[in-house]
């Protein structure tokens, strides 16, 4: 075993034998489970050529069209995600800094707004945007990408900007208090302290959390499919499946695409996290013991 666990000791010969037996039984159980699922799928004809060919067989008539549509869906998902991320960072940055720099009393409205939006489901903020904005006379049909895209982006931004504001606040709060005091002591204004001293350091600390939030935003773009707002990857997949009558196959492809993108993002977050930890630990002057775990 690679990493020692807190739960059990390094195994001796008897424990190793037991683990081997347990391993065999567990493998058998997992194999049986997968076998039952595969048999079920096979019995219902889910491995039939006409269901998989449009995805896997380049000589199939629909092959090119299917992958072109999926590609369009991926592009649409990424467009919505990138726009939502950009706006969330921008607004979240302003909200987060405002919350930190305002006085105890004048920040009450901002704290209230953050708590309010944090407690709402994203699907509600998106639905809210798509129903209430037209009612208030906001017309987005002329925008590039169509109104659905922008309702999705607005709804996602409303929720995620306050999350990012809180991430930024946590990042600044994690810095040693001496940083702010030293910056103020050499005569920087509070604004310059924030901009030149605190935020640049905080960004490093909060980078992993920010990347993890990107995964959340990317996943949440698919809510547009439930609301029927915007043809992103999942809705595109659904439309293909309606035509080809192969929902299991198409949804598997959609799921794998999401998993690949998000898994790479999560790995990036872990990598950035470990990299920044190593940097701090390698400083010879660092007297603080490294945090466990």
């Amino acid at each position: 075993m690679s990493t020692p666990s807190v739960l059990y000791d390094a195994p001796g010969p008897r424990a190793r034998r037991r683990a081997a037996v347990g391993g065999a039984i567990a493998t058998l159980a997992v194999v049986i489970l997968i076998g039952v699922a595969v048999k079920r799928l096979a019995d219902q004809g889910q491995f039939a050529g006409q269901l998989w060919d449009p995805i896997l067989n380049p000589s199939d008539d629909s092959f090119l069209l299917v992958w072109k549509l999926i590609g369009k869906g991926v592009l649409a998902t990424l467009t919505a995600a990138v726009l939502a991320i950009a706006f969330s960072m921008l607004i979240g940055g302003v909200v987060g800094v405002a919350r930190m720099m305002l006085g105890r009393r004048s920040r009450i409205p901002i704290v209230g707004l953050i708590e309010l939006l944090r407690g709402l489901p994203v699907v509600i903020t998106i639905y809210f945007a798509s129903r209430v904005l037209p009612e208030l006379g906001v017309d987005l049909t002329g925008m590039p990408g169509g109104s659905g895209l922008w309702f999705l982006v607005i709804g996602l931004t409303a929720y995620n900007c306050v999350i990012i504001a809180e991430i930024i606040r946590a990042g600044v709060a994690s810095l040693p208090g001496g940083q702010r005091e030293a910056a103020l002591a050499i005569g920087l204004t509070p604004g310059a302290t924030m901009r030149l001293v605190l935020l640049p350091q905080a960004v490093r600390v909060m980078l992993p959390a920010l990347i993890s939030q990107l995964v959340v935003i990317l996943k949440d773009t698919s809510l547009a499919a439930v609301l029927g707002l915007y043809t992103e990857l999942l809705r595109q997949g659904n439309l293909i499946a309606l035509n080809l009558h192969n929902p299991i196959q198409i949804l598997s492809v959609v799921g794998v695409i999401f998993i690949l993108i998000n898994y790479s993002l999560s790995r990036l977050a872990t990598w950035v996290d470990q990299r920044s930890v190593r940097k701090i630990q390698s400083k010879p002057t660092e007297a603080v013991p490294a945090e466990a775990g």
Partner: protein
Amino acid sequence: MDAITQNLDLFWSGFLRSLTICLWGAVGSLILGTIIATCRVAPVAPLRTFGTGWVTVIRNCPLTVVLFMFAFGLPEIGINADYYTFGLAALIIYTSAFVCEGLRAGINSVSAGQAEAARAIGLTFTQSLTQIVLPQAFRTSIPPVGSVIIAMIKNSAVVGAFGVGRDLFSVGESLTSAQGYAALPVLTGVAFGYLMMTLPAGLGLGALERRVAIAR
């Protein structure tokens, strides 16, 4: 405001329905998440692989894809149920991966010295697990698992939007779409209903955290 006052009973029954979904979802995902977490830290390699695979796949997949897979995929292989069952099952399976990670974070936060000390004073495996490791792990797990449950309350709206029917989201949808009420007051009412679940849950969680906090 007429839209809310005239349909107060609808909102109330929608709120109760959403609350029911959340309660079953919490119970189910805590149980399933604990099972998966047990697999992930088990001394048996295939179980660990299974747990890791489960978490990696489900955590990186949007809830909506899991939902669609259940509702459109399962009937293809002859498994039929109503949207309520499918929706609840998808919610539980999706949330279980996050519950598992919260629990595992708690177990990993117990320093190895604790278990080593327990073994050194002669406690058996079961004793060290139930008296030393798990009580500490459980306390550390409360904040992450609590936020997972709060996120699940919010995700129950996705299940509602998908068409479970008669829950808070569906009430808002039918009032604005079918009955032609103005969206702003109705959806404000819906939002208020969700806040009535998430805000108290957050406050309760904070209080619980302070109660069981331990100095390390």
